[in-house]
C-alpha cells in the first residue's frame, strides 16, 4: 500500500495538478472542482434520475460561463439503485477513489443516513442531502459536515396543521401516511402543529412503501366520517389513495404533502377519478412549478428552459425534479463562491452555514435560501397552493416552514 502511495504521488506530481497548492483539499485543482453523489439511475426509483441530470445541466451552464473562480465544476453522480448498501459502496468510491471535494445532492433519507457517519469521520462535506428528514438540519452539532436542503417534513406538517386550525378548527381529520421515517416525521410535525386540537385526528392509517394497494386503508379512513383528509404519500400511493377515496364517494378537504403533489400527479388523479376529489386540495411548495402558467414569462423559468434546451435536450421540461435539482445546484455554486478563491472543505462548510440567497431563480418569488451557524435548514419557507382549474394556485403569502 505504501508503494502505491508513492506511485500515486509521483503521478500527481507529474500531472502537476495538485503540486502548486500542497494545502488544498482533495478534489480542488487549478481549473476544476470535483464533487459527487449518488442518485438512483435504475431500479424502482429511477424516475428520480432527473435530480442528478438537472444539477449536472446547471453546472454545465455555469461552466460555460467560466465556472467559479475559473474552476469548472465536475459533478460525478453514481447509480445506487436506491439501495443504501450500494450508496455506501458508491460513496466510498467517490471519496477514496475519485477523491471528490464534497458529496453533493445524494438522494434519499436512508441513503444519506447510511453514509453520514462515514463522511463526518472523513471530514468530507455532505451537502444538501436530498431528504426532508428533520435530522439533517437539526443534528448539525453531532454531524457538522452534513446539511439537508428540502423543507423539513416536520415543518411542512406544522404548516398544514396551522392552516387547518385557521380554516376548519373543528373538522375531523383522517391521515394516510407512509410507514417509514418520512411518513412518521411528517405526521409528528402535523400532530405537534395541531397542539391541543390533535384530538381532531379521528383516524390514521399507514401503508407499507412496498405494498401495491391502499384501498382497505382508505375504506377505514372513510368510515371515520372525517371531513379533512391529509395524504402523506409518494406519487403512486397519493394517486391510488385519492382515486379510492373518490370511488367511495368521500368528499373531504384534501391536503397533499409536497412529495406526492406534483402537477402531473394531480392531473393523473383528475383524469382517473374526475376533478371533484382534489378540487381545492392544498399543498406547500417552495420550488417553481414548470407547468404553471404563472411562470410562463418568469425570468427564472426562462433561464430554466434555456438550460434544459442547451444542456439537457433529452430531459422533459415539465419534470419538476429538474427545477428542484437546479435550485440545489444554484445553492452549491453560491456556497462555493462564498468559500473563497482557494476553497477548503472547512471553508466550504463555513460558507454553507452562512448563506443568504434571495435570487435563486428556481425558487418561488420571496423564498430565500438562508442558513446560519445555528440554522441548518437552507430551505425553510414555502407557499401554500390550492388546486383549481387543473393547476396549483398560490394561497396567501410565502410562509415559514421551520420545524
Amino acid at each position, binding site marked *: 500500500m505504501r508503494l502505491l502511495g508513492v506511485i500515486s504521488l509521483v503521478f500527481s506530481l507529474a500531472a502537476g495538478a495538485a503540486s502548486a497548492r500542497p494545502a488544498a483539499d482533495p478534489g480542488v485543482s487549478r481549473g476544476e472542482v470535483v464533487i459527487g453523489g449518488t442518485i438512483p439511475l435504475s431500479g424502482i426509483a429511477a424516475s428520480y434520475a432527473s435530480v442528478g441530470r438537472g444539477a449536472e445541466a446547471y453546472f454545465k451552464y455555469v461552466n460555460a460561463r467560466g465556472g467559479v473562480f475559473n474552476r469548472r465544476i465536475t459533478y460525478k453522480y453514481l447509480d445506487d439503485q436506491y*439501495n443504501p*448498501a450500494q450508496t455506501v*459502496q458508491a460513496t466510498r468510491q467517490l471519496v*477514496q477513489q475519485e477523491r471528490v471535494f464534497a458529496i453533493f445532492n445524494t438522494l434519499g*433519507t*436512508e441513503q444519506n443516513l*447510511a453514509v453520514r457517519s462515514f463522511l463526518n469521520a472523513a471530514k468530507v462535506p455532505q451537502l444538501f442531502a436530498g431528504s426532508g428528514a428533520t435530522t439533517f438540519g437539526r443534528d448539525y452539532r453531532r454531524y457538522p459536515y452534513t446539511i439537508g436542503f428540502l423543507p423539513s417534513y416536520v415543518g411542512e406538517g406544522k404548516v398544514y396543521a396551522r392552516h387547518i386550525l385557521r380554516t376548519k378548527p373543528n373538522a375531523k381529520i383522517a391521515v394516510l401516511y407512509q*410507514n417509514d421515517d418520512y411518513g412518521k416525521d411528517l405526521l409528528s410535525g402535523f400532530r405537534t402543529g395541531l397542539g391541543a386540537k390533535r384530538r381532531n385526528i379521528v383516524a390514521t392509517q399507514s401503508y407499507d412503501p412496498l405494498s401495491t394497494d391502499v384501498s382497505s386503508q382508505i375504506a377505514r379512513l372513510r368510515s371515520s366520517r372525517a371531513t379533512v383528509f391529509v395524504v402523506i404519500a409518494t406519487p403512486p400511493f397519493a394517486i391510488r389513495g385519492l382515486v379510492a377515496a373518490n370511488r367511495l364517494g368521500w368528499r373531504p378537504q384534501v391536503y397533499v404533502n409536497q412529495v406526492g403533489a406534483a402537477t402531473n400527479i394531480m392531473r393523473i388523479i383528475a383524469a382517473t377519478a374526475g376533478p371533484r376529489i382534489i378540487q381545492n386540495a392544498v399543498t406547500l411548495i417552495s420550488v417553481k412549478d414548470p407547468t404553471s402558467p404563472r411562470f410562463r414569462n418568469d425570468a427564472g423559468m426562462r433561464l430554466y428552459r434555456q438550460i434544459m434546451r442547451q444542456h439537457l435536450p433529452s430531459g422533459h421540461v415539465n419534470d419538476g425534479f429538474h427545477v428542484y435539482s437546479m435550485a440545489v445546484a444554484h445553492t452549491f455554486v453560491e456556497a462555493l463562491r462564498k468559500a473563497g478563491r482557494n476553497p477548503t472543505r472547512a471553508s466550504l462548510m463555513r460558507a454553507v452555514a452562512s448563506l443568504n440567497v434571495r435570487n435563486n431563480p428556481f425558487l418561488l418569488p420571496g423564498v430565500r435560501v438562508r442558513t446560519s451557524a445555528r440554522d441548518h435548514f437552507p430551505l425553510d419557507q414555502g407557499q401554500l397552493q390550492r388546486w383549481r382549474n387543473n393547476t396549483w394556485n398560490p394561497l396567501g403569502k410565502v410562509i415559514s416552514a421551520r420545524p
Partner: protein
Amino acid sequence: MLAARTAIRVLGLALFVAVVVVVPSRISEFRASEFALIGIFFIAILGLNILTGYTGVISLGHGAFMAVGAYTTAILMLGRPGLEAGGLSPPDWLPVGDGMKDVYTIPIAALVAALAGALFGLPALRLSGPYLALATFGVAVATPSVIRKFDSVTGGSGGLNLFDSPNLTGAIFNAVHVPGGRTLTFNDWLYYLTWTIALALFVVAWLIHHSRLGRALRAIRDDEIAAVASGVGLAWHKTLAFSLSALYAGVAGSLLAMSAFSVQPGAFPVDRSIALLVGLAVGGLGSLVPLVAGAVFLVFLPQWAQDLSQAPGVPAVIYGAVLIGLMIVLPTGVGGLLRRVLGPLTSRLYPRSQ
C-alpha cells in the same frame, strides 16, 4: 492416480490462497473494499449453489437469509445499550446482549440464518419446482416490509448505523491491528476477513460436494423418486440443504453489514435475491471455483455498464444484453466452459469418476 488428483487440488487451492493474499498490495484501498464485496457475494453464491446447484431446488429468496444474517450482526454489535441510545426499545425477552465485537457475531448470524432456513424449509418443501421458487420469491418480496414492521429492534426504514459503534473493527480511519504487529486499513481488513471466511466456506462446500451428503443431494436433483428408492430421506436432506445454504447467506449478510457499516430494509430488495441466482448461473450451477466469476459479474458489470453510458435505461439494457449473450454463449456458465476446456487436459492426468 489418486495422488496426482489430490496434488493438483492442493496446488490449486494453494494458488488460490496465494492470489488472495497478494491481491491487496497490488490494488488501491478502495479496490480492496470492492474485492471484499466480491468475496461476500462469492460466499452467498456458494451457499445458493448447495441448494440450487446440488439439490436442484430454486430459491429466489436468498436475500432474505442475507438480511437475517445482517440484522443479527447489527443488533448484536449494538446490543441493548446501543439500540436504546438510538431511540429504540427492544422487547425485554429478546437476548440482544450488551454489544459484541463484530467478528464474534458472524458465527451467531450464521446459526440464526441456518435456523431461519430450516424453519422456512420445513413447510416450503411440500411444494415442488416452480411453486417452491414462487414461495421463496414471496419471502424475498416480504423481507423489507417485515423488517420495517419490527422497528423497535430493526430501526424501521432508517435501519441501524454501525459506523459509530465501538464494536466495528477499525471504522474506516482507525488502523486495524492484526497479529504480527502489522496494521491494516479498514478496507484491507474487510478484504482479508471476507476472503479468509470465503476460503474456509469454500473448503466446506467442496467437502460437502464430495461427501455422502453431496451425493445424496445430487441424487435428489437428478431424480427424486430414484433417490428415495435408494434410501435418501427427501425431507431431511432438502431441509438440511436449505439450512446449510441459508447459513452461507447469513455469513454473507453479516459481512455485508460490516462492509456497509449499517443495515436498512432497502439493502435487501427482491433484486438482491435475483442477483444471487444470476451470479450462480453465470458462475455455473454445480461448480465451485468458477462461482467467483459470478460474484465478479455481480459487482463489476453494473459499474461497467454505467461507465459506458448513463443515459436513461441504457445501463440496464447493457446489463441485460450481456447477461443474455452470456447465457447463449455459455449456457452452463463459466464453470461449464472451464470443464469443457480443461476436461480433456485433466482427463489425461487422471480418469474422472463422473
